[in-house]
């Protein structure tokens, strides 16, 4: 006889998977990443959840226990600030270190890869990362071969191992509480890999004009690496989709020709490569992707869950509905500024309009910010649960 939690786990997993297959489950699945709001809910400062990974996961457990979601959210913080300090990492700012103790972490945009690095990066990227990139982004690695640099590598790898072990334990604990994992592994569009942490936004946008051939060569080179990383960072799991935060493909960064030439081909290859291994992708389309829906529809059926932030949901439903699951729909400003009643009304209308024939997962439009009101989050989950019954 399965226990109640085992039964709940299976129900939720079936519900989630059926929706991702564009089908109609028993109820509309609920997937909400609380992020740092979980810390507020659990009574921790942000500094605590960035620096004490156990508290970070404990905050996640409180969400799993108290909110009737279908899949467990990511831990409030994906990063462990201590591990960043251990190597002198420069590009994230954390609460309690260089930000006020209740400010969400921030990424410091920079040109961490220079234009002249392209050739070495393309020729042997992994080697370039160790020889050039880490010494540049980790202060403690500035002098390769030094005592300080050697220690940074030891501390950094040990820290990653500890992070992964604890995350896996938390995932197992949440599963034991009856909640499956919503996403495993990190996928990236090759153009975003270049634009986010390597060339930076300004760098990659200038490269479109000044060295477009390098972008093509680098993104093609990255395709197999990004496929590998998405599966490997999921520990080989293909039951849950990978999480793919998409950035520079949103309107209005690239013009349509640039999008077709530099953004889409390598992204499509990554998604198709993952799907060929049975790994689905959460196409987390931050901001507005409306003009590109027809191209996205070229992907194999069910290979992505298309997440709607500011994309026109009606248009997304029209172009992708039936073949792909949609997720999202609840705007962050409503959770921050709306009343519980307004949230309830909004959720009902959203479900009436977009969830009626299945293939829909309710979620917030974008990553939750600290200003989301807890009662509004309860209103969202309760309404979705009671109203979202097929």
């Amino acid at each position, binding site marked *: 006889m399965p226990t109640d939690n085992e039964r709940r786990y299976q129900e939720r997993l079936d519900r989630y998977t059926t929706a991702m297959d564009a089908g109609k489950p028993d109820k509309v699945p609920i997937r909400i990443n609380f992020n740092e709001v979980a810390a507020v809910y659990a009574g921790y400062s942000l500094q605590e959840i960035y620096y004490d990974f156990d508290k970070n996961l404990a905050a996640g457990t409180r969400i799993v226990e108290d909110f009737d979601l279908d899949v467990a959210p990511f831990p409030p913080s994906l990063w462990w600030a201590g591990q960043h300090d251990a190597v002198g*990492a420069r590009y994230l700012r954390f609460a309690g270190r260089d930000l006020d103790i209740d400010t969400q972490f921030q*990424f410091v945009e920079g040109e961490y890869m220079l234009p002249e690095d392209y050739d070495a990066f*393309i*020729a*042997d*990227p*992994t*080697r370039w*990362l*160790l020889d050039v*990139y*880490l010494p540049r*982004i*980790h202060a403690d690695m500035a002098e390769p071969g030094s005592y300080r640099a050697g220690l940074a590598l030891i501390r*950094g*790898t040990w820290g*990653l191992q500890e992070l992964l072990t604890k995350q896996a334990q938390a995932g197992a604990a949440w599963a034991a509480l009856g909640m499956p994992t919503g996403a495993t592994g*990190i996928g*990236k569009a090759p153009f975003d*890999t270049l634009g*986010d*942490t*390597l060339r930076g936004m300004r760098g990659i946008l200038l490269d479109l004009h000044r060295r477009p051939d390098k972008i093509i060569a680098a993104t*093609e*080179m990255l*395709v*197999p*690496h*990004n*496929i*590998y*990383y998405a*599966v*490997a*960072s999921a520990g*080989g799991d293909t039951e849950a989709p990978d999480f793919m935060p998409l950035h520079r493909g949103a309107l209005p960064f690239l013009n349509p020709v640039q999008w077709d030439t530099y953004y889409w081909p390598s992204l499509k*290859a990554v998604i198709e*490569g993952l799907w060929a291994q049975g790994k689905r992708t959460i196409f987390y389309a931050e901001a507005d992707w409306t003009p590109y829906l027809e191209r996205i529809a070229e992907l194999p059926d069910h290979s992505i869950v298309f997440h709607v932030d500011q994309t026109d949901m009606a248009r997304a439903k029209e172009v992708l509905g039936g073949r792909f699951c949609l997720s999202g729909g609840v705007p962050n400003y409503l959770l921050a500024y709306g009343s519980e009643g307004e949230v309830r009304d909004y959720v009902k209308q959203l479900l009436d309009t977009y969830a009626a024939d299945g293939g829909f997962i309710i979620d917030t439009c974008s990553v939750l910010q600290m200003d989301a009101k807890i009662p509004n989050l309860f209103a969202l989950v309760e309404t979705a649960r009671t109203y979202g019954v097929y």
Partner: protein
Amino acid sequence: MTNQTTTADPGADAPPPGVCVPFTKKLDELGGVKGDESLVRGAWEELDAAAYMYLWFWVHR
């Protein structure tokens, strides 16, 4: 996850995803092994892939 084939040929000497130093290179250094090579290979590839993951961890955010 060591059996993935690559679709691109990024550079003549570049090892495929998941590999920093291919086992063949390590085997040359060792000058062959007396016992079961697959045991040596399995352990090497597991730890070498971990090194790969550590390096890319700082890129894939």
